[in-house]
């Protein structure tokens, strides 16, 4: 087999350096195109559903405490081992486990979202907040109180009411509803799950399609 590195070109193309001219026209065309830069602090990125940001523990509206039942699934599934839970159970029969300590070391987290996917009661969540950098490490080693506070702050800036907030990670994709624990059987819009999930290029195409139809409608 013969490998041809350069496509053959004629005398005229050699003389006038056709490839260089091609490249130069491309850069000249780009000179007049719109830059894709987002001027970040002035212009925030639009956050799509399923964004994995700052960690939080959902505050149960009934008890005012976390929903966590201390099943340790999140701590076990965590690839970076950044979740640490201590809990105890009262002697009285039928009582719930009480969480003594629930800590997430945000600096070690890889934001995979396994913890929220595996949680049977939807207690842990990666919120859409992403601006929480700090000058020291201890403040990013979240305690249970801090995680509940993160949730309160996230809820305060949320557009929809709390009980309508659903996260696509709260319902694992591709599983029939019967296989899910009761807490995970949440109504999720069809494009979040399984085959119909729309991400990446498909999402951008859909958005531009929606925009054009909206413009035609108006």
């Amino acid at each position, binding site marked *: 087999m013969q490998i041809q590195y350069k496509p053959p070109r004629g005398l005229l193309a050699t003389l006038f350096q056709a490839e*260089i001219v091609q*490249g130069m026209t*491309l850069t000249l065309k*780009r*000179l007049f195109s*719109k*830059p894709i*830069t987002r001027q970040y602090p002035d212009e925030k990125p639009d956050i799509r559903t399923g964004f994995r940001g700052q960690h939080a523990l959902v505050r149960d509206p009934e008890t005012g405490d976390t929903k966590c039942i201390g099943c340790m699934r999140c701590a076990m599934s965590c690839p970076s081992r950044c979740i640490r839970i201590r809990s105890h159970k009262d002697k009285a029969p039928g009582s719930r486990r009480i969480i003594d300590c629930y800590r997430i070391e945000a600096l070690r987290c890889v934001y995979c979202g396994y913890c929220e996917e595996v949680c049977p009661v939807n207690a842990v969540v990666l919120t859409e907040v992403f601006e929480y950098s700090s000058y020291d490490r201890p403040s990013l080693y979240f305690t249970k109180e801090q995680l509940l506070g993160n949730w309160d702050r996230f809820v305060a800036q949320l557009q929809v009411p709390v009980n309508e907030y659903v996260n696509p990670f709260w319902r694992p994709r591709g599983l029939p509803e019967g296989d899910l624990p009761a807490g995970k059987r949440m109504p999720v819009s069809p494009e979040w799950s399984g085959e119909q999930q729309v991400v990446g290029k498909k999402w951008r195409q859909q958005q531009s399609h929606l925009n054009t139809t909206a413009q035609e409608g108006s």
Partner: protein
Amino acid sequence: MNILLMLVWIIILFCVVMLHVAYATYFERKIIGRMQVRMGPMRVGWYGLLQPIADGIKSFFKEDIVPDRADKPVFLMAPIICLVAMMASLAVLPFAKGWVLADIDIGLLFIFAMSGLASYGIVLAGWSSNSKYSFLGGLRSMAQVISYEVAMGLSLVGVMLMAGSLNLTEIVEAQGDSFLGMYLMPQCIGFFVFFVSMLAETNRVPFDLPEAETELVSGYSTEYSGMRYAMFFMAEYIGMMVMASIGTVCFLGGWNGPFPVPFFPPLWFVLKVYMFMFIFIWIRATLPRYRYDQLMGLGWKLLIPVALGNIVLTAFMKAIIG
């Protein structure tokens, strides 16, 4: 009295050129940014317009580090040689009719001499830094400037033959003020050779081997910091402007334009120089760097024979016609 007036003119020219150099960096960053679908500087001032001034202040107040084992006097002197040589060649440039500091009869030779001298600054900088990157950058620069100086000198011999003078003002006047009088058409081979060697002479992409970031950190200026680094930068940009001016004077008819501008005669000159600058930047945004042996091959095996052929052809035509 005459000397005082001269000094005033020199200071005015210095300030104007420095301002142009500062904004040439802004122009370059902005154009390259837009060509790469970015925005370029946007933060300092309206659309980043104060960026060059911020850069200048920053480099002025930065620490001037001299490496421990460097050859100190040479190390300190090298950027000054570079800058002074480049600035000196500004003196003979005719910006408009009569707008020239030193109207000497060897103008073109003087500019060659000065750009040759500026490469001493680069070579000495590379040598005295006592660092392998700087040393390699200096060596490359030496070889590159020597080989392309030859090609560039030869490419302009055609222009000298046609104009019959080395005085830059006379070269412009010999071209007349019509579009057809420009030496671009009769000297198109010379222009091609001149253009390529101009890129090499100013160490610009695609011939920026002396300061190839990807392999030599920053070449000869690796060990420099603060104001001395800025001096190399200024020298490079003044070098670009001088070379663009030579191109304008020798091939594009200097200050002559389609119609004379009443209050600001150098307008056409400035526009043509900026066109050259834009092409410099445009090429930088497009082309990758040459390999070193290819660079030498191009210089010695293509450009010099072509330039020699051009001299013979021009002399032959001149003997037949005039």
